[in-house]
């Protein structure tokens, strides 16, 4: 028999009280794990939305004209302004210090062409980059692969009565329609997309670029910093971050995180208090028993080890159950709160180990005083019957 057997046997004897002891600590750990998991889900949700959002940085020519806008018809006149960006600006974006954060660089050149008597905006893009940027695009047909192919916005196709594989003549150049976009509800519906160099040529503006859309990863580096660095590389351009709703979402998440920390601390304090009072009661109940141990020749340190072992076992059990419960709760409550359809089960080993460690730490720390108290008990007083 070893000291641990004494601890285990004692816990077994007091099943009812031990159950509540473990429950108290479990509730604390469950709360912490649920809140951490939910805020992680929220973070992931926002990250996904960021991805879907496409570009988060816009590079425009520095222009005094306020009416420049990316969309609708108003863009035409402005994009023909003399001070445009240039082909040579494109690679510079990938030369910034935090270049590993740059995901997609999609340059565009916009102009207006007349086709079959209708004025239609024409956008030159690099289809490889544009396709990656606009993951939500659904195309009847395919993305253009050659210079003599074009992609039509839904509205344009309707107006021109064109479908996939039909042909168009743009400023005297014949192109095949490789695909038609499904309705997006955005300005994309009103555009003809063609290869960047082809459009530059067709509009007689070689190397001209109207704007560059950039998609950057902002998890490791604030978007302001990326914007700043691009601005330095392209002093003649105006670089802006697209934040808007995501910014407020991030702020909401931040508030939720602070709230979570507050709740966690309170619940854990209550858990610690439960362990403390329960351990104190247990020690006082066992006064006589501790007296026997001391009389038999147990050192104070032996008594403390028995108490700490019990706290350790309780902490371990509460840590494991608390982690599993927290995982389950976040799995069912998270989607409800966030409006997500389903969430993957993610077993994060570091979170699991953290939960068990935290639980054990609280169990043991809240037992320091009870253990000291137990070890200091006077054995003669405990064995008053002597």
């Amino acid at each position, binding site marked *: *028999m*070893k*000291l641990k*057997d*004494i601890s285990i*046997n*004692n816990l*077994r*004897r007091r099943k009812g009280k031990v159950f509540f002891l473990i429950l108290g600590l479990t509730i604390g750990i469950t709360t912490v794990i649920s809140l951490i998991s939910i805020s992680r889900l929220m973070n992931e949700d926002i990250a996904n939305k960021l991805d879907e959002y496409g570009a988060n940085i816009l590079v425009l020519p520095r222009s005094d004209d306020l009416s420049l806008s990316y969309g609708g018809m108003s863009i035409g006149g402005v994009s023909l302004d003399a001070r445009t960006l240039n082909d040579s600006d494109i690679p510079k974006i990938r030369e910034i210090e935090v270049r590993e954060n740059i995901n997609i660089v999609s340059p565009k050149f916009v102009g207006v062409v007349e086709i079959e008597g209708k004025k239609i905006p024409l956008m030159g893009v690099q289809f490889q980059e544009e396709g990656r940027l606009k993951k939500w695009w659904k195309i009847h047909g395919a993305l253009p692969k050659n210079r003599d192919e074009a992609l039509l916005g839904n509205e344009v196709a309707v107006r021109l009565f064109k479908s996939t594989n039909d042909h168009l003549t743009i400023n005297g150049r014949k192109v095949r329609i490789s695909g038609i976009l499904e309705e997006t509800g955005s300005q994309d519906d009103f555009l003809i997309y063609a290869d960047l160099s082809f459009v530059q040529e067709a509009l007689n503006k070689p190397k001209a670029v109207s704007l560059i859309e950039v998609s950057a990863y902002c998890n490791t580096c604030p978007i302001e910093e990326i914007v700043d660095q691009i601005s330095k590389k392209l002093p003649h351009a105006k670089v802006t971050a697209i934040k808007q709703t995501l910014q407020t979402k991030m702020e909401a998440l931040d508030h939720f995180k602070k709230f979570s920390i507050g709740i966690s601390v309170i619940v854990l304090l209550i858990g610690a208090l439960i362990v403390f009072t329960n351990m104190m009661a247990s020690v006082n109940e066992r006064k*006589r*028993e501790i007296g*026997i*141990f*001391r*009389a*038999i*020749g*147990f*050192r*104070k*340190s*032996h008594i403390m080890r028995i108490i700490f072992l019990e706290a350790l076992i309780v902490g371990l059990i509460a840590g494991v159950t608390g982690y599993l419960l927290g995982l389950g709760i976040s799995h069912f409550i998270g989607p409800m709160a966030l409006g997500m359809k389903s969430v993957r089960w993610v077993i994060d080993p570091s979170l699991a180990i953290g939960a068990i460690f935290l639980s054990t730490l609280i169990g043991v720390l809240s037992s320091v005083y009870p253990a000291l108290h137990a070890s200091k008990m006077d*054995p*003669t007083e405990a*064995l008053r*019957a*002597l």
Partner: protein
Amino acid sequence: MSLIEIKNLFKTYESGEEKVCALVDVGVRIGRGEFISVMGPSGSGKSTLLTILGGLNHPTAGEVVVDDISIYQLPLERLADFRREYLGFIFQSFQLIPYLTVIENVMLPLSITERSNREQARMAGEILERTGLKGKERRLPDQLSGGEQERVAIARALVNAPPILLADEPTGNLDTRTGKEIMELFKSLNAEGQTIIMVTHNPENAVFSSRTISLRDGRVDGN
């Protein structure tokens, strides 16, 4: 040379304003292999003497020397080690640990030694056989009769072969017949060389011992 030497022992309890002198200038020598009865009416200080002998109760003045060790000059943790190495305690009303089985109760003093579980079980098994409890190793204390519980307590006190056995009213909670059996067991242990110091107020028990120390009002009445 004596195994135990008590010199000029005083013990005063203070409760509020009142001072109670439990032991006054007690001096006793006990040799190896003696079987001592400590007798006296209640309040005579015999229990106090036993707890002081047991290394559980610091005297107000005086010295307790066991095997050339002045035990109350030891640091507290060393005093605990002394109890483990030198003393076997048999408490009044058995004082078994209710959630441990018979054999686990007996192994208790061994659980803080380096001995392996197998070695502990062997030692506990031997002493349980000696005290007549073979076959009851896996029972819990509340499944035993009073006499059996007393035997478990004796087995626990003897399992690590301590030089001194201290017993406090070992027959106090037993019927006359069982009490006599326990006394017979004590006598045979003593015959094998076990030093025993027993506190009792029952003169029938005292006849089994080799010497009686009588206490009255905290003083040795005669021995």
